[in-house]
């Protein structure tokens, strides 16, 4: 187990460098960011040159990357164009997005798995068909449509929620944005769970459990569900990273000042430091989430052992 974890951690290193280098080059290709800093009028040559020097933009891109990575390892993510250290931006943005992601994941787990179990056990019944149709609708409607419609109906028409999240982003205000963010994944979780449950229902060990006379609740939760959850856990695990990165749409609609907001601003202003810094952290989150998912397999199914 320990060796497996170490091997996986080592594998992360090339992925990490590759991903950051790619992002670095992508932002670099977008052109000269200093030109945008001075607005509709060109910066005077002297100031432009000094600004480039300040942000290290006057060096060749390879050198810039090396310097940047060197700094990252001592915890310095550089400075955004508005003079704030990127780490400060991260400290403000990540807690908000993590909270939003947690809300979304809780929705996925609670609603997604319950609906999945419900429909999996009642395959072919009206409730199954109804939920299937519903998930189909949710999957086919883009997130920003769901978000804007909910915002308009709940926020403006009925006044149930605030149409935008205040700067502190408390969890109660994040419920609807979280639901919107989770919606598509939630539908997938429902379908995955349903299929998995429906398949395993006919498995030998379930029949044995029923034959032993175990109570129905115990058969479902301890035997059926636990084995059926493996693909679902894989999905939710990888989804954590996707949710954090993909929150950009939801965050924009509900004006949540999280990772999406900072990334969006960073891209608009071509602030390499901001974009690369945030993406670097997102890549790490993604890699770690994947590792945790793999480790969870062993917990769910003791037959899976890592050497």
């Amino acid at each position: 187990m320990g060796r497996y974890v170490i091997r996986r951690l080592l594998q992360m290193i090339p992925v990490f460098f590759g991903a950051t280098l790619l992002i670095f080059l992508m932002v670099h290709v977008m052109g000269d960011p200093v030109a945008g800093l001075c607005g509709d009028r060109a910066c005077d040559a002297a100031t432009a040159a000094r600004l480039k020097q300040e942000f290290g933009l006057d060096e060749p891109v390879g050198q810039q990357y090396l310097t940047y990575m060197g700094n990252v390892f001592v915890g310095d993510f550089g400075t955004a164009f508005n003079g704030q250290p990127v780490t400060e931006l991260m400290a403000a943005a990540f807690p908000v997005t993590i909270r939003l992601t947690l809300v979304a994941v809780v929705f996925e787990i609670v609603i997604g798995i319950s609906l999945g179990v419900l429909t999996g056990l009642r395959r072919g019944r009206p409730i199954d068909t109804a939920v299937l149709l519903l998930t189909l609708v949710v999957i086919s409607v883009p997130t920003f449509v769901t978000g804007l419609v909910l915002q308009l109906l709940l926020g403006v028409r009925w006044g149930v929620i605030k149409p935008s999240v205040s700067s502190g982003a408390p969890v109660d205000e994040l419920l609807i944005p979280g639901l919107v963010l989770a919606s598509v994944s939630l539908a997938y979780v429902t379908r995955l769970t349903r299929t998995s449950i429906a398949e395993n229902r006919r498995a030998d060990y379930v029949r044995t459990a029923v034959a032993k006379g175990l109570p129905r609740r115990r058969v479902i939760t301890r035997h059926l569900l636990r084995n059926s959850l493996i693909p679902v856990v894989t999905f939710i695990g990888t989804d954590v990273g996707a949710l954090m990165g993909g929150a950009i749409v939801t965050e924009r609609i509900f004006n949540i000042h999280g990772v999406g907001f900072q990334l969006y601003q960073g891209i608009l202003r071509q602030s390499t430091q901001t974009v690369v810094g945030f993406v670097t952290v997102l890549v790490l989150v993604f890699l770690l989430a994947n590792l945790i998912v793999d480790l969870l397999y062993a917990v769910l199914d003791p037959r899976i052992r890592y050497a």
Partner: protein
Amino acid sequence: MRGATHARWAACAVTVAVAAAACGGGGSGGGPGVVTSSWGDPQNPLEPANTNEVQGGKILDMIFRGLKRYDPKTGEAKNMVAESIGTKDAQNFTVKIKKGWTFSNGEKITAKSFVEAWNYGANARNNQKNAYFFGYIDGYDKVHPEQGEPSAETLSGLKVVDDTTFTVKLSQKFSTWPDTLGYPTFAPLPKAFYDDHDAWLAKPVGNGPYTVDAYTKGSQMSLRKWDAYPGEDKARNDGVDMQVYTDNNTAYTNLMAGNLDLVDDVPAAQLRNAESDLGDRYINTPAGIIQTLAFPFYDEEWNKPGREKVRRGLSMAINREQITETIFQKTRTPATDWTSPVLGKDGGYGPGLCGDACAYDAARARRLVEEGGGIPGGRLRITYNADTGSHKEWVDAVCNSINKALQKDKACVGNPVGTFADFRSQASEQQLDGPWRAGWQMDYPLIQNFLEPNYFTDASSNDGKFSDKEFDRLVNEANGETDTAKAVATFQKAEKILAEKMPAIPLWYQNGSAGHSDRISDVALNQFSVPVYEQITVDR
């Protein structure tokens, strides 16, 4: 025991959620008497000489008062901290400041507060993006050389005479120079600015009607009324909470839901509904902004004699009336000169100065373009940035209009560029071979500000490198003219040359549009399309 572990995990998640909810609390409402307003995240640090965009400028306008201030209604530059600014030769000025002004931290404002601030802003070492505003002052080339390190620390043209007087020597005659001093870059700075720069940036201290109460970068700034403010334009509300919105659609939605008092940028998509949604709470007033299509004069193909016919022809091929009506819902007015209506006729606004060239006439347009030798390269590519401002819509409409007039399907196409920064770098580095969207938001309400930076040889915003000796001569003459009326008339003479040469096609004047809740009244936009915050009153 595995079941138990699961339950414990779930309980943990709930606890975390609840705890986070508790700690994240605190609403956004500013309480009675406080206005909540939409805001955009300023892209540069908030320093007077380093802020060159509207979002940061709004704040500076609330927390600073300079020597002059532009009357929010007429645009006239009126003395604020200045007692008088006198000159005999339009080159040497004596500035006297009023007694009794202080910064909100109690420090007295003296002649030194201005001179030191201007020296700081001009010095190349401080990387201030508005440094060129001090370019007229004698000695600027020493503190801000084109290349290399500055050879002087202070502007030789600035001299402190006593506590309330200082003199300014310009490097050339510039009669309307005192009227430029309402721009926030010329604000005075307190000692705290130099002593602890980071702390000042975290919570700026100025001398305006508001003080910064709290500032969370990227999300909110709370400004509160400064009770001891010595000026006459005291705030009529208790404060303003500026809330950052990434998307002005969300801000508008919040206004509709009653969570926000003021939106000073109605999204293009909502313009159609704004009037019916808001009634008389929808504001649509002219601002000092003009949009043009600029041409690349560094490109031989566009600079040949005879090409002005092509440019004039293209200008005639654009149906401005129709585009401003259908796409902009009348928040733009077809342009007929190169300035803005907010200047007023006395200030140099010359309606109709562009003449026939700005009137839609498809047949003549076609003839002129042919006479001029056709569009260089056979196709017009209009470059614009696609990230903000819904530029795609109007560029497509302009192209459509040109194609129709020239009776060619593909005579004009849009050429989108991903980000503003990339667009700006292509334009300022002379990489474009066709026209591009150019916009000019005035720094101060002077005809000089519309003409000189854009069309004077090698001027700061003359990206197309247009150059005309007669134009330059007239501008210099106008700047040296001590009589304002004569100066304006000479500027307009220079503008007539633009009408002939058409270095940029005037498209339309832009309005400022805003909407507000029924909780506040006396809302107005100034000529910079910025709300006049201190005049807003809160009804309940």
